[in-house]
């Protein structure tokens, strides 16, 4: 996939991209319809539930798992190992790609079929494998389409939501020879046929993981299409890849998270398949992969883990509800952000993973309306974290100094100078009084326009007298009045 880390130019092009997206009627229509549908379905799916209690439970399950994270990872590793699944650890995306490449090379694998995995997008795995001469093909229908179009997913759950049937039909025709058609069933059936061939011939299947259960050594995958099951069953080798935060202590922890995940994501009570894998193929079993690997990817997560506030981001179960409800995301779509994870969760996660210098546009791509925090199934305080990152991008303050990579990237010399002056003035009453009096006296020199602020607002005018002057005047006249009547 052509997933690139955002570069400085991508940061700079955020605004032009957003403007372009806002003027694209088709894109806006697609997103509006899809997001309205998802919001409605989510609401309906939680009817009859005590949603607040369920969200509190979901948050607590995730917090408890994070509190014991290193122990759980070790338990998961030893349980998986005794089940016959090999565990690998990767500090960054590059190492994770190398591990997968090495497994492929050792097996002389030429083709890899992939189930949906956001971590593999984060790692840019397809790119990496292709450079090594290993074909990596996406099998989730949306991802398959997006890969064929040489684009990136615009939504973490519905990767091809930005395209319409006509475009997809034309693309399939051009790339695979499928007849042009408006019939979604026909297009789907055609993709089924082509992908079945690929499944049969693939040497390795790569999938993500939704939950990894430490107690039993079980990898859980949530999906509707069955491509996840195909990927993890048909090829002789299955490599699962996941962030280190996805581990939970026990099977009982899975139940509330699963109940929250599918309802929040697509308004489904449960997805078509919930696939729990604990072992490679056992003696006598006629199908399933003979080798199963798990790659645990850190890639910045242990850094977020250090901080009491930022750690909340690691609770995320990747449902996408925050995007579906975000007034910014629903208008511009995922590509505008230029990162693997877009929308509100992307805006707090990507700065953690990549640093603020490359993602400085993200924390401000929000109106802070709070919808994301209200719908989050594990109660991540997303708006608070956005504010925290905004503060970090100007290097924090004396109480909360910046700790995220690239902090202070937005700190400008003139702006800091101005604020230092402001601070100085406010710490010296005499200077303050002189300053405000001067401002009132020369108020005619105030510029009529203040950029974007005054484009849709009337500029406020300075009063002819300062508050101090007015108060003093009133006190003077009161005392003279009182004096007169006494």
């Amino acid at each position, binding site marked *: 996939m052509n997933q690139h880390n955002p570069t400085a130019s991508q940061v700079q092009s955020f605004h032009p991209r957003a403007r372009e997206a806002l003027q694209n009627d088709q894109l806006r229509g*697609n997103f509006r319809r*899809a997001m309205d549908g998802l919001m409605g379905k989510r609401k309906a799916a939680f009817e009859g*539930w005590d949603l607040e*209690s369920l969200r509190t*439970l979901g*948050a*607590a*399950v995730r*917090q*408890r798992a994070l*509190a*014991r*994270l*290193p122990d759980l*990872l070790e338990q998961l590793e030893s349980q998986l190992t005794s089940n016959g699944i090999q565990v690998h*650890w990767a*500090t960054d995306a590059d190492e994770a790609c190398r591990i997968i490449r090495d497994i492929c090379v050792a097996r002389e694998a030429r083709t890899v079929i992939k189930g949906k995995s956001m971590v593999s997008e984060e790692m840019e795995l397809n790119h990496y494998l292709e450079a090594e001469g290993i074909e990596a093909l996406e099998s989730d*229908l949306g991802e398959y389409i997006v890969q064929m179009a040489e684009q990136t997913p615009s939504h973490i759950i519905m990767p*091809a939501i930005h395209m*319409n*049937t006509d475009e*997809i039909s034309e693309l399939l025709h051009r790339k695979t020879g499928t007849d042009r058609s408006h019939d979604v069933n026909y297009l*789907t*059936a055609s993709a*089924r046929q082509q*992908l*079945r061939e690929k499944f*049969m011939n693939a040497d390795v299947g790569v999938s993500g993981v939704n939950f990894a259960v430490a107690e*039993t*050594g*079980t990898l859980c995958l949530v999906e*509707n*299409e*069955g*491509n996840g*099951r*195909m990927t993890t069953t048909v090829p002789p080798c299955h490599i699962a890849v996941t962030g280190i935060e996805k581990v939970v202590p026990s099977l*009982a922890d899975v*139940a*509330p998270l*699963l*109940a929250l995940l599918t309802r929040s994501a697509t308004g*489904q*009570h*449960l997805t*078509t*398949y919930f696939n*729990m*894998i*604990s072992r490679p*193929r*056992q003696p006598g*079993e*006629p*199908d399933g992969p003979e080798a199963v690997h798990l790659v645990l990817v*850190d890639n910045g997560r*242990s*850094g977020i883990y*250090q*901080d009491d506030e930022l750690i909340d981001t690691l609770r995320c179960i990747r449902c996408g509800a925050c995007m579906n409800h975000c007034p910014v995301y629903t208008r511009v779509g995922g590509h505008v952000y230029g990162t693997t994870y877009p929308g509100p969760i992307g805006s707090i996660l990507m700065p953690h993973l990549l640093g603020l210098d490359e993602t400085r546009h993200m924390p401000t791509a929000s109106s802070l309306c709070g919808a994301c925090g209200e719908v989050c199934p594990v109660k991540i305080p997303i708006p608070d974290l956005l504010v925290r990152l905004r503060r970090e991008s100007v290097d924090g303050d004396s109480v909360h100094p910046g700790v995220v990579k690239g902090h202070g990237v937005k700190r400008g010399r003139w702006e800091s100078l101005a604020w230092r002056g402001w601070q100085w003035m406010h710490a010296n009453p005499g200077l303050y009084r002189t300053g405000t009096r001067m401002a009132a006296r020369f108020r005619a020199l105030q510029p009529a326009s203040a950029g974007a602020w005054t484009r849709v607002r009337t500029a406020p005018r300075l009063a002819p007298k300062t508050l101090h002057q007015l108060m003093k005047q009133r006190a003077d006249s009161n005392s003279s009045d009182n004096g007169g009547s006494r």
Partner: protein
Amino acid sequence: MTSREDILQRLRNRRDGELPMPELDYGSMTGRDWSAAQKLDLFQAMIETVHGEVHRATDEEWLDTLAGILKQRQARNLLTPLKHPIGAEIRASGHPDLPELLSYGEPVEHWQRELFNDVDAAITSTRGAIAETGSLILWPGIDEPRLMSLVPPIHIAVLEADQIFATFLEAMELQRWSAGMPTNALLISGPSKTADIEQTLAYGVHGPKELIVIVRQ
């Protein structure tokens, strides 16, 4: 230092110290005191909303129901478990309306192309179902391999009516899943589907186009 040690050490030496362990209150997930009849009705209603088809039958009539389902769809064959009693019953019945019976007697590598291209339907047992979400519980294995419920276009699942649990949590607890998980455990709620093309639902994208449940009462 290995990456493993490096990651674990960073997690263990957390800058901001120990993390809280909030209490868990499962109140919102428990207390579904449904009768057996209510659970069956709810299971059926829920799986029907996701395009699953449900037939209720007695132990005597279920083979007729099965034969009818297959005949109506003009299935040429049915992949059947070798050892499970439902497989044995089907084979022993000699029902005139049943199509050719196939079995998954050898490793998939020996007959993958046939399985993918020539099998019209497969029948499997289930380990029960979940009423709340309309889901079937399957533990594939030697007798009923993983691809049986995935590759053929029609999947027929036999469910015993007294094996319906209120919730997933309850099923895992009562069946003591944590005591030992199988190679693969599945919850299946309806046929394979996608909405990836303009949010239009299409069935059978990678797995079965049809999921038919025969509930034996």
